[in-house]
């Protein structure tokens, strides 16, 4: 089995951790503002799971890097170009439908990815995935049910969900585009071949969207640049100004 470099492994772990960090942050923005109390609780719960997973992924990234950085250092003290989350995760919440569509499109990928990672040759990665996959199973059940309920609800809810799908679908492709890092991970048996996940993803997502009476947009265009860090959207910088405010304003303080 091929070896991976420390840098490649660090990069991969940042991708996993930044996805959960940035999406967890976005979901947490809802706290206290959801359409019904039960949804408020469920959104907070999802955000909480994602932040917990972030602690594990970025904690391991810090260990692998070996420069003494903690998960907090990595989360709070990097700038936009060092973030490795997919562009989908940083998209703004929009209305509740847009938030739940983003969640479902991500969750279905996340579930497939984590399921594969439970068989990783890297013990700690397999252990994190084993814990996270149980949480994500619940996330995707809930986001899928909500997408169905709202897609197949009233004409207004249907239209809003179709608009959300049209807006977010072009961000799906990036989750399956492999680069040298992904190839190295796959060759070492650390992570799956992303192209293999696509078939699973489509088998999961297509029937849910059909039940929701929603049409998957035509054309295979995919935005990219998030997971490589080459080019994020403008939204990420604003998210970081909030998330990192205290750590940046009071350097060296402990909290």
């Amino acid at each position, binding site marked *: 089995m091929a070896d991976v470099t420390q840098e490649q492994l660090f990069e991969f772990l940042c991708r996993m951790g930044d996805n959960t960090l940035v999406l967890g942050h976005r979901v947490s923005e809802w706290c206290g503002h959801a359409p*019904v109390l039960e949804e408020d609780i469920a959104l907070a719960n999802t955000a909480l799971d994602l932040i917990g997973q972030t602690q594990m992924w970025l904690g391991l990234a810090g260990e692998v890097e070996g420069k003494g950085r903690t998960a907090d250092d990595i989360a709070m003290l990097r700038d936009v170009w060092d973030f490795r989350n997919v562009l989908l995760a940083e998209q703004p919440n929009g209305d509740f439908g847009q938030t739940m569509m983003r969640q479902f499109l991500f969750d279905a990928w996340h579930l497939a990815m984590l399921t594969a990672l439970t068989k990783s040759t890297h013990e700690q990665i397999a252990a994190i995935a084993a814990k996270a996959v149980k949480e994500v199973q619940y996330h995707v059940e809930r986001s899928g049910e909500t997408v169905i309920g709202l897609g197949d609800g009233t004409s207004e809810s249907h239209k809003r969900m179709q608009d959300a799908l049209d807006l977010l679908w072009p961000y799906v492709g990036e989750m399956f585009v492999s680069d040298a890092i992904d190839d190295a991970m796959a060759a070492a048996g650390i992570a799956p071949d992303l192209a293999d996940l696509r078939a699973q993803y489509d088998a999961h997502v297509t029937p849910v969207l059909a039940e929701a009476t929603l049409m998957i947009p035509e054309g295979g265009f995919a935005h990219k640049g998030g997971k490589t860090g080459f080019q994020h959207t403008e939204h990420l910088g604003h998210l970081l100004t909030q*998330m990192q405010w205290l750590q940046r304003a009071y350097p060296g303080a402990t909290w």
Partner: protein
Amino acid sequence: MYAQMVKSEAADESAEAQAFQARIDAGEKIEPKDWMPAGYRKTLIRQIGQHAHSEIVGQLPEGNWITRAPTLERKAILLAKVQDEAGHGLYLYCAAETLGVSRDELTEMLLDGRMKYSSIFNYPTLTWADMGAVGWLVDGAAIMNQVPLQRTSFGPYSRAMIRVCKEESFHQRQGYDIMMKMAQGTPEQKAMAQNALDRFWYPSLMMFGPSDADSVHSAQSMAWKIKMNTNDELRQKFVDQTVPQAEYLGLTVPDKTLKWNDEKGGYDFAEPDWAEFFEVIKGNGPCNTERLAARNKAWDDGKWVRDGLLAHAEKRNARKVAAE
């Protein structure tokens, strides 16, 4: 308190009412299907409803800092805490529903201003230390009232309080933990902690409401065991508990008259500005407008979601019936 100045209805003198009072005096719990005086029911709906609304509006001042929490752990803890508050709101609305009012009706009354929520949530949270102060002081004050309410006469309310209290004591500890970290931190952090105490001290004392020692409403509520102590008793207990904690933190309670009184075995302290309290209750607190606007916006923006999910549930049921 989370329920402040709840106006109590008068008792009636019927034989049923007397038998009801005898059950309460004997320490029995009243359950939703039991006979109860109309006044008891109405007062409880007001009190539990206000308590529930306070939990819901109370998400906002803390939710204000979730996206700016300084570490991943603090963010997770704060999220869990605010989620607990929403859960408390849910138990309390359920308890109120057993009295024959729906959650939607109560929500409408909150949103159009017919029902109130605790005055404390109309104060802003300006720095991270405020997350500490809210946990330590606001949850601390809430616990003072909620611990005795575990023994309240209405079964569903009492059981809700038992669950709530378990979580609230964790909330208070996390608040104190934030304050401790700040008070022992950099000079800026310590200043932030003192500033938070300066702003939250008097509003916390106001949470118990004005003195009700001579109030007939309070006397009736106490006879019904839906209020267990006078406002002054609870406020005194809160001050006595909190002052040594502030001293331990090395922070100064913003009350120059504060002094231990050996004779009464408690502190003498300055009353909050009750004129300010009544202004806040009337809608003139620093954040009343924003808090109600935020709740109204969440409700209005969420209408299409609630309608959509309901429409889907109806379609699904119709399909199921058609298939059978």
